[in-house]
Each structure stands twice: as C-alpha cells, then as structure tokens.
C-alpha cells in the first residue's frame, strides 16, 4: 500500500504544478537555511576532545581580587607566580603550562628569507594529555623538561615545508637563530575549537607549526605571542619585573581521572589561595575555578553570537515556511474533496485516506529535501561570505548533513501535513456526492 500511495503522491506532484512548486521551494529554502547555519554552528560548538573532555581541567586563581577582577570571576589566565607554584606541586596525574610563541624559521633550500612560525611553549605532559598524534617520533620526556633541553615537536605542516614530509626526527631546526632538535612530528592534529588556548585565541586561529619546552622558552625570555592582561599600576621594565607582576598570560591544564581526584585538586587550589592570603599576597578570600573542557568552551563563549543568532533566525524561517506549507497542503488536499468523497463512498476508511495524504506530503517533503540539499551544497561552499574565514572553512557538507537535510525535510513536511490530512480524512462523502 505504501508503494502505491507513494506513486500516487509522486503523480500528484505534477497535478497542481504552481502550488507544488511553491511548497517545494518553501521547504527547500527553509531546510537549506537551517542546514547551512547548522553546519557552521555544528563546527564551532562541537566537543574537540570528546573522550577526555571530562578529565581535562584548567585551574583559575583570582590573583586580582574583587576590586579588579571581571564581575567576580578570576582572570582567565595565570600569572607567572601562580603558574609556577601549581607546576611545582605535581598535584595532578598530568599537568602542563602553556603559552603561544612566535618565532622565525629558516626554510633552507634556495630561499634565504626567514618565515614566521607560530607555536606553543608546553610541558612534556601536553602530548599524552591532549592525545596528540604523531607521524614520526614522539614528545619529549619529563627529564627534558627538567634539563631545559632544546627539543622541538613540529607539525606535519612545518615538516612538509622544511623537510618535504620526510622523517625529520633527529634533524635540526633553527628558530629565532637558535638550534633545536626535532624529537617528533605530529600527524594532522589541530583540534577545533582549540580548547587548550582560549585565553589568547578565540579557538579558531591558524594551525600551529611547532611545540617547544616551556622551560626552554623561559630560559630564552620569550615573550608571549598571545594575550597579556594586567591590573593596577604597571612598573616593570625588565623580564624579571614582568614575571613578578600581576599580568596573566599562562594557561594551565591538569588531567584528573576521577571525581575524587577532582575534589582533591579543588581542595588543593582552595588551600593554595588560602596560603597566599595568609602570606599577605592576596587580600581576599580564596576565589578559584576548576573548569573542564566543555565548561571552559562555554565560559569563554567560543560559539560566536553570530552563529547562534543566525541558526535561530534560520530555524524561525523554516517554521514560517512550514506554516506556509500547512496552508498550501490544505488547499491542495481539499481541492480534491470530490475525489476523496468517491473513495470514501467506495469503502476507503478514514485511516487509509489519512495515510495516503500523509505519504503524499512525504513526497512533497522529499522533493523539497532534494532542492534543499542542492541549496545547502551551494550555501555551504559560499558560507565564507557570511562568516569569518577561519570559522567558515570549518563548515562542510558530509554524509550526516546530507542525511539530516533529507530527514528534516521529509519529517517536517509530514508533521505539517497532520492537520491538512486530517481534514482530508474527515471529508463527508455524502456532501461531495450530492453536489455532483
């Protein structure tokens, strides 16, 4: 019966071509607008490290106090004093400090002009903590952190540029005039949003080129290539003066395996802040935060308001298209009241009529979905006009989006058809037969 009704549905698409075209367009545009904006929203709101996001936490300590912090929240980064204190205690299973650095690299070959490279100064735990995947070699060891070695992990992108993609482990890279030994080459690892650095980036910066030891970066007095946020009166004129200031510029991450560990680390943070208060460094009660990846993404508003607003407006647009479709389906179905009357008089039940018209609406939804899919494909490729380039390039049309487009189009149209089909099923056969 389904196949027959489906055939009838397809045939009736041609019956009122203008009305049908209108419905198909309404559904097509509505579903395409929703899917295009959803493809962007999906890209910016996704969980970049789903299997570990609940075990990775970023500690925040209020080193500015209630008069200078932002609405009672501790600063989003750590100052040098607090960062080093957290690092020294080894309270967490794994932990790393990090900040962005920019350096020059000599590309070698025929060119003698240095190129700019962006990277991060990180601890050795960075690689296992964040599940960095390697093409060649690996990260450096905790001993290398201690010995403040000149090791570097480069990304496949920089490896391609410097070594043509060959295994470069053991080779030398010159960064800002200093030599570094390559210990690992990452395979394409660039989580989006870049959850681990939401202090200096909005989560969607260009991919990194290298990772170097945090301790080595400090030895070289490398200034942060990212944000540096300070309060009160600034008086520093030297590297050490800056380190001792209240400027926050370091992000800290810890890995905590269980709820008990999280609770213990929370207590430790509170205890640390209380110690600072007792020591007279803080003149306020402990004010600390321990947010996991998802909470941090939310706290830093990683999803741009533009993406949210456009998704909401597009969904509202789709709803209006569906209201439009309800009206048009009503017109289309009731125009055939005579026909329905005859079928009912010949013994068709209301249920059968209802099913037939729902399926017919489904075929309209199918056609709308096909149009919507075409428009979505066009829209996703042209989404660069609507969103910032670094966000727009994350949106893409994949199998799940194609499936979702078709499913949403068909299901939504069938929901829109509930009422018109019910009206069709309730046509009184006697009335129709009489007037003919």
């Amino acid at each position, binding site marked *: 019966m389904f196949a027959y009704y489906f055939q009838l549905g397809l045939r009736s698409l041609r019956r009122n071509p*203008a*009305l049908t075209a*209108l419905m198909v*367009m*309404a559904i097509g*545009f509505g579903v395409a*607008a929703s899917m295009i*904006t959803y493809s962007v929203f999906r890209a910016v709101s996704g969980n970049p490290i789903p299997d570990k996001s609940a075990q990775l936490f970023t500690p925040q300590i209020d080193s500015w106090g209630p*008069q*200078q912090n932002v609405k009672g929240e501790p600063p989003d980064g750590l100052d040098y004093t607090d960062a080093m204190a957290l690092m020294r205690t080894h309270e967490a299973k794994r932990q790393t400090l990090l900040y962005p650095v*920019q350096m*020059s690299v000599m590309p070698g070959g025929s060119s*003698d*002009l*240095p190129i*700019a490279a962006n990277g991060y100064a990180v601890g050795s735990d960075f690689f296992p903590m964040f599940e960095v995947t390697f093409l060649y070699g690996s990260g450096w060891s905790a001993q290398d952190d201690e010995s403040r070695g000149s090791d570097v992990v480069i990304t496949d992108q920089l490896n391609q540029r410097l070594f043509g993609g060959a295994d470069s482990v053991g080779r030398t890279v010159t960064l*800002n*005039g200093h030599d570094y030994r390559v210990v690992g080459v990452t395979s394409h690892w660039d989580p989006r949003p870049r959850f681990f650095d939401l202090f200096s980036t909005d989560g969607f910066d260009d991919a990194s080129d290298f990772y170097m030891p945090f301790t080595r970066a400090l030895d*070289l007095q490398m*200034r942060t*290539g990212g944000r*540096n946020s*300070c*309060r*009160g*009166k*600034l*008086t*520093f*004129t*030297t590297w050490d003066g*800056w380190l001792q*200031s209240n400027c926050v510029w370091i992000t800290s991450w810890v890995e905590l395996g269980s709820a008990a560990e999280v609770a213990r680390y929370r207590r430790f943070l509170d205890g640390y802040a209380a110690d600072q208060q007792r020591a007279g460094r803080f003149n306020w009660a402990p004010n600390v935060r321990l947010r996991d990846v998802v909470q941090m993404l939310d706290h830093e508003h990683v999803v741009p*308001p*533009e993406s*949210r*607003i*456009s998704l909401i*407006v*597009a969904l*509202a*647009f789709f*709803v*209006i298209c569906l*209201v*439009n479709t*309800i*009206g*048009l389906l*009503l*017109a289309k179905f*009731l*125009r055939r009241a005579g026909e329905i009357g005859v079928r009912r008089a010949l013994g068709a039940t209301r249920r059968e009529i209802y099913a037939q018209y729902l399926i017919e609406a489904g075929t309209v939804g199918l056609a709308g979905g096909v149009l919507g899919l075409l428009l979505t494909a066009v829209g996703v490729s042209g989404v660069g*006009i*609507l*969103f*910032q*380039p670094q966000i727009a390039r994350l949106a893409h049309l994949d199998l799940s989006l194609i499936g979702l487009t078709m499913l949403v189009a068909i299901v939504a149209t069938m929901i829109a058809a509930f*009422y018109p089909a019910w*009206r069709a099923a309730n046509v009184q056969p006697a009335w129709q037969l009489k007037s003919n």
Partner: protein
Amino acid sequence: MSLQIKPILIALRRHKAGTVLIALQIALTLAIVCNALFIIHQRLANMSDVSGVDEANVFVIKNQWAVDQSTQQVDAQVRADLLALRQLPGVRDAAPASGYPLQGGGWDNFVTMTPDQVEPTTDSAVYTGDEHLLDTLGVHLIAGRNFHPDEVVELGTQQAIIPPVAIVSKTLADRLFPDGSALGKSFYAMGATPSTIIGIVDPLHRQGTGQWNQPYAGQSLIWPLRADDARGIFYIVRAKPGQLAAAMREAPKALYAQSRMRMIDPKDGIQDYAEIRHKAYDSDRGMAILMGIISVVLLAITAAGIVGLTSFWVGERRKQIGVRRALGATRGDILNYFLTENLLIGIGGVLVGAVLAIGINLWMVTQFETARLSLTYVATGVVALLLLGQAAVLAPALRASHVSPVEATRSV
C-alpha cells in the same frame, strides 16, 4: 462604496484554518523580518564607523624580527627602516606603531583620574608612535600640539613605560573632562605617574571593533613611544595621493634592502585600509547579508503563500461569486471583497506579529546583549506586510472579479 466587514467576518468563520494560517504566517514573518532588519541596521551602523584614518592612502606593514636582538639594536633598525620608508618617492610619511585603528584588537589600558584610584574611570585604546604618527594616519588635531621629537622614547619588549605627555581622542577627552577643559590636564593610565594631555584629535577609532569595545567606542590615546619590541613592529605608511599601489610595492623592497632578518608575510603582511576595514567588519557584513537574504526570501514565500491560499478560496467560491454578480454586484465589489478580507486577516496577523517582534527582541537583549528594537521598525514592518498582503491578493482577487455571472447557473 461601503466596507462589507460583517459578511466577510461571517464568511471567514467558515475558513477558520486558512484564515488562522495566513494570519499566523503574517505574524511570524513580521516578527522575524523586523528583528532581521534591525540587526542589519545595527551591523551597517558598525560598518560605517569612521576610523579617523586617511583610509584611501594609508597602509600597514606587519614586520616581525627574525632573530633575538636587544632593544638598542631593534631601535637602530627601526630608525633606519623609517628613514628608508620616508625617502620612497610615493611615500608621504611613515611612523612606527604597536597597533592601528580597526586592527581587530590590541593594547588598551584602564584610565583613572588619581594615582590611588582602584575602580577605573574608563578604558582607552593605547597607540604608540613618534612625531610622524598624526600626519601618517591623517588624523585631525583639533586642539593643542603634536609630539616634539625629543619627547619620543624607546619602548622595549613588554616594558611598562608611562610617558609624561599624551595626545587623546576627543571622545576620551570629553569622557574624562566633560566640561571641555581637557587640554593641559592629566590622567593616569595604569601608571604611577600621570600623562598630561598636550593634544586632542578627532576622531580616532579603537583597534577593536567587537562588542567589548562598545562602551568605550572612540576612546583612544597616543603615547610618544617607539615600539622597539623584540618580536616585531607595525610600520604605518601614508602614500602620496594616487600612489598607494606603487608605495605598497616599493615599501617591502626598501625594508629588505635594509635588512633581510625580518618577516613580512607575503599573504597579509602588507594591508591597505580597504582590506583592514573589510576584515574588521567581516562578521558584521556576513550577518547583514544573511539577514537580508532571509528577509527577502521570507517576504517572497509569505506573499506566495497568500497568493496560493486566496487562489484556492477564489476557486472554491466561484459559484457564490457568480451568484453575487448575478444579483448585481459589480466587479469592483468583488475585488473589494477579497482585498478587504485580506486586510482584515492582515491586521489580525500584524497585531500578533508586533507583540511577537518585541518579545523576540527582548529575549535577544537578554541572550546576546543586543539593543532594544526601535518601534519605527515595527511600524514600518506592519505597513510593509499589509501592503505585501494587498499586493499578493490582487491577482487572485482580479481573477475573482472576472468570474462571469453565468457561473451561478452552471452545474446545478
């Protein structure tokens, strides 16, 4: 010609579903289009902010240093670079800077009136430059004087140096000294020592264009500092009129001739203000375009929906129309009937829609800190949708008015 409202209302009761659907569609369309147009208006207003810069002739070079150097070494290089840039035939002036208007984000300091004030009075964007900066940017000095060359000092990597003098934007001057007496007065910008206002420029946009900057829009200050940061520097260059392209081609060559241990990104290391403005407002522009597309398509679909349903009603009522015509109704009467019917539905729709539009806006205010919807938008939207309804119904109504009285006698 009298309006036949009562019979229309009675007739509408027989088409409850269709009536409600059209009214609902008009209501929702009004609510969405009002808010979309309001968003477009706000975004376009952002995009038309004046920077204060002579945008037609100014470009910015992002110059990163390739090796670690001392502040003295960097300073010598910066001076040599600037000399070389200023000597180029197409260049009017050049200045060293740590940031520039519409950069997208950058250095800002809190401002206080006294040294021991904890709660800041306001916030100001901080620009640094030498005595050439005002002429290079092309900003208008409306009071006071420019920096003297001997007031300009070196600013090493991440040093907190507070110069004794500053030039401020008029917006900042008025914010700090509302009585207009800013010139010669001093303020504190996160330093132990004050800066005295020696000049006032108007306007001078902040680096940032995002929402965070809105409360401090237009508030900026310039300190006489040469940004000798070990990481890099911005060179702002003003070309002679009509020579922008040539100057942009020659500038990097002149710099590389000075020293090759620098990095100027071949992709976006040199940007003119058309590009800077384009980038600064790309999310505003994108939102305006998206809201525009959605509004247009939405209005078209609503109009088409009205055409579709009214055509159906006309088809359904051909016989009744024929009877009315046979009983003496003119074509005008019939046309009028359908136009009035649509107007009544439309009025119902826009009343609900206006409430909905304001409701959605209030929700957006709480969610996204957007501004309040101006009532002129709602009023314009109401008129536009009523007109749209009348236009949409015109074709089917005309068709109805052409139904011949003879229809009344058919098929009975």
